[in-house]
């Protein structure tokens, strides 16, 4: 008995010493009078895990709280929410994953629920489309500049504010032999590459579609300039850049190989924590707003939000239970207890260092990722067709023409053109 106790104490001390992190819970919630079923589908971020852990404390006899947080949520969300009754009573979506749900008429307007139970929800959290509140946003995300301030100092360059300065700084770093491949980024062909192009194109002031229509607007000067800037950036990256997604690029940065990158703000916490990085990375990483480009004032990035939607195909009781549980959990306490996990949009959240980049980009006027029904098709077409330009086997104009043709064929099939 004594040995077992000692063993347990040692194990506890060990766990404490290793700094095992459980998501910090907010105060106990008291929804004893709410009955129903809550089951939320979402992505695998630490922030969402924290929210669902807090929501779990609300469960009691008449109220069950479950979740399915997986990277594959985007693939199953439309099918899962189409079922009647739907397995999931709520879903965590972002601006891009909200659109397929709206296209399939699966989202329940939350105006009544917000009026009755939404005192804690600020106006900027409400995603309103055509007068209907379709989602409650609680965190923001964007790609912005992350850099090693010690290595920049070593090479004698200032933190860059425009992409032209990024190129100069990277060249100086390379010439000073501080790093062989100073830059890295999420340039994996497919969704990531499409996102990089959209960011850069927005920075140059371009718009993806002709105003008010679903016709592509890629054969413009700004698009060619965006591609050329991307090409110059890739010349200072590890030649395998077309295979690196967020994981690959973060690995390079944490491994001390890259000096600057344009990375998702939601990764900031993972990069500056004590795990997985070589000496000197975590404490020397600094965050800046996304650079501007071409003399423009808009940062070359897009703003994303993550929020909660409630599907149509569930009972009113479950919808109310889900809304009330999550509304009671999304408080400033939760945000401040998990300050590094996300850039929370909840009033009362005090931003920490890792949130600087996203907030600075937002304040500098970055545009939100377009929530158009056909932007997903454009994103895919860009990610697939721009590769050959970066590999040097096509001209920029040809690559953009190919992307336009690919998008147009897909849009015709989808019924948008």
């Amino acid at each position, binding site marked *: 008995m004594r040995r077992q106790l000692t063993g347990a104490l040692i194990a506890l001390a060990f766990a404490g010493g290793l700094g095992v992190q459980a998501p910090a819970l907010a105060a106990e919630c008291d929804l004893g009078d709410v009955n129903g079923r809550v089951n939320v589908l979402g992505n695998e971020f630490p922030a969402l895990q924290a929210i669902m852990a807090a929501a779990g404390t609300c469960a009691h006899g008449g109220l069950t709280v479950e979740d399915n947080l997986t990277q594959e949520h985007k693939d199953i969300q439309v099918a899962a929410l189409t079922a009647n009754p739907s397995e999931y009573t709520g879903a965590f979506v972002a601006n891009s994953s909200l659109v397929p749900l709206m296209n399939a008429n699966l989202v329940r307007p939350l105006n009544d629920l917000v009026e009755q139970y939404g005192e804690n929800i600020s106006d*900027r959290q409400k995603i309103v489309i*055509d007068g209907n509140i379709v989602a409650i946003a609680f965190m923001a995300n964007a790609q912005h500049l992350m850099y090693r301030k010690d290595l920049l100092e070593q090479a004698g360059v200032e933190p860059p504010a425009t992409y032209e300065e990024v190129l100069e700084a990277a060249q100086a770093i390379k010439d000073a032999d501080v790093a062989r491949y100073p830059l890295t980024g999420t340039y994996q062909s497919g969704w990531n590459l499409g996102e990089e192009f959209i960011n850069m194109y927005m920075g140059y002031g371009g718009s993806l579609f002709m105003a008010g229509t679903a016709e592509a607007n890629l054969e413009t000067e700004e698009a060619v300039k965006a591609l050329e800037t991307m090409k110059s950036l890739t010349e200072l990256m590890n030649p395998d850049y077309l295979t690196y997604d967020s994981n690959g690029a973060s690995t390079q940065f944490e491994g001390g190989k890259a000096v600057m990158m344009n990375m998702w703000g939601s990764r900031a916490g993972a990069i500056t924590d004590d795990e997985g990085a070589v000496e000197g990375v975590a404490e020397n990483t600094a965050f800046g707003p996304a650079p501007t480009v071409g003399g423009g004032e808009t940062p070359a990035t897009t703003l994303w*939000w993550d929020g909660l939607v409630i599907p149509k195909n569930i009972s009113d009781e479950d919808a109310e239970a889900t809304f009330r549980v999550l509304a009671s959990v999304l408080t400033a306490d939760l945000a401040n207890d998990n300050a590094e996990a996300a850039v929370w949009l909840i009033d009362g959240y005090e931003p920490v260092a890792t949130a600087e980049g996203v907030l600075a980009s937002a304040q500098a006027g970055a545009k939100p990722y377009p929530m158009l029904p056909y932007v997903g*098709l454009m994103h*895919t077409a860009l990610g*697939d067709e721009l590769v050959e330009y970066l*590999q040097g086997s*096509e001209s920029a104009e040809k690559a953009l023409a190919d992307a336009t043709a690919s998008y147009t064929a*897909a849009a015709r099939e989808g019924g948008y053109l």
Partner: protein
Amino acid sequence: MPHRTFWMFLAPSAIAMVLFIALPIISVIVQSLYIENEKVLITTESCGPFGCTENVTVDEEATARLLEEQPLGRFNGLGTYTNRNHLAFDELGAAWSARESFGDFVGEVMNLPFYKALAFTLTYTFATTPIVLFLGFLLALAVNSLHRWLKGVVIFATLLPFIITPLIGSLVLFWMIDADGIIGSTLQWLYDDPTLSLKASPTLTWITLIVYGVWHTTPFAFIVFYAGLQTVPGETLESAMIDGATRFQRTLYVTIPYLAPLVLFVTLIHLMDSFRVFEPIVGFSAEANATSLSWIIYNDLSQETKLFGSAAATSMLTIIGISIILLPVVYRTWRDFRTG
């Protein structure tokens, strides 16, 4: 066997095949002939954390009504098959008439996604098959002549590449061939070229994928041939030895003819499997340099807006492709069974 007994034996498999193979394929064919209804788009105001903008959204009720009237969508006939993302007849015609040389035309064709994928798929299929057969046979011969106590261990070791899930195997190799990984840096040192990267060049990526394909599938050929070698009649081999045949002649004139049906079998299976190559492309994140027909289907279905008609059309084209490739092998097998 009386006909009735024959049909009763066949019935369960036949019913299962109809339910799980034939009907789904018919459903896919039907789906490939339709495209989505026209979406009714309206301009509305949308507000979010970053301000309010004018936005285009889908008119949910009007679209839902259209969906009720025409649940399958608009009939498009073979339109999806001939559009740019599939057989691209229009683009092919334009490229042919605008060509400056045949090489020019081929370059234009390779620019089209379906043909690019088809080129890699065919290259992968026809490059890996002979190598797999040859290496598998050599391995089987070698292992067959080992001491008994060594055979078990060696067979297990040889089977390992086939046992490892393709996705995991290719992920492990992805990091090993990275410019900073062990294989990548060794190659850079061997060729004294610090910019050499297997993942950056399309040709080298194709070679990497083919090498991976051979590595992964050779054990399958090996084990089938090894089993076949156990059945080669000892007396024929002995009489060949007595007649003074060399080892090489014995293999060529006795062993190989006996193994011919197995060669056909392995070829059949491997042609089918390699035409559907997919996991290595995902595992190696090689879609920038090499795509395959299965990968195009996956791409259509894994984005946020899923293109079911397009994926269905590519699936049908893949089935037709496999049928064409397997025709010679199947004909040979049928002929053998008829006469034998």
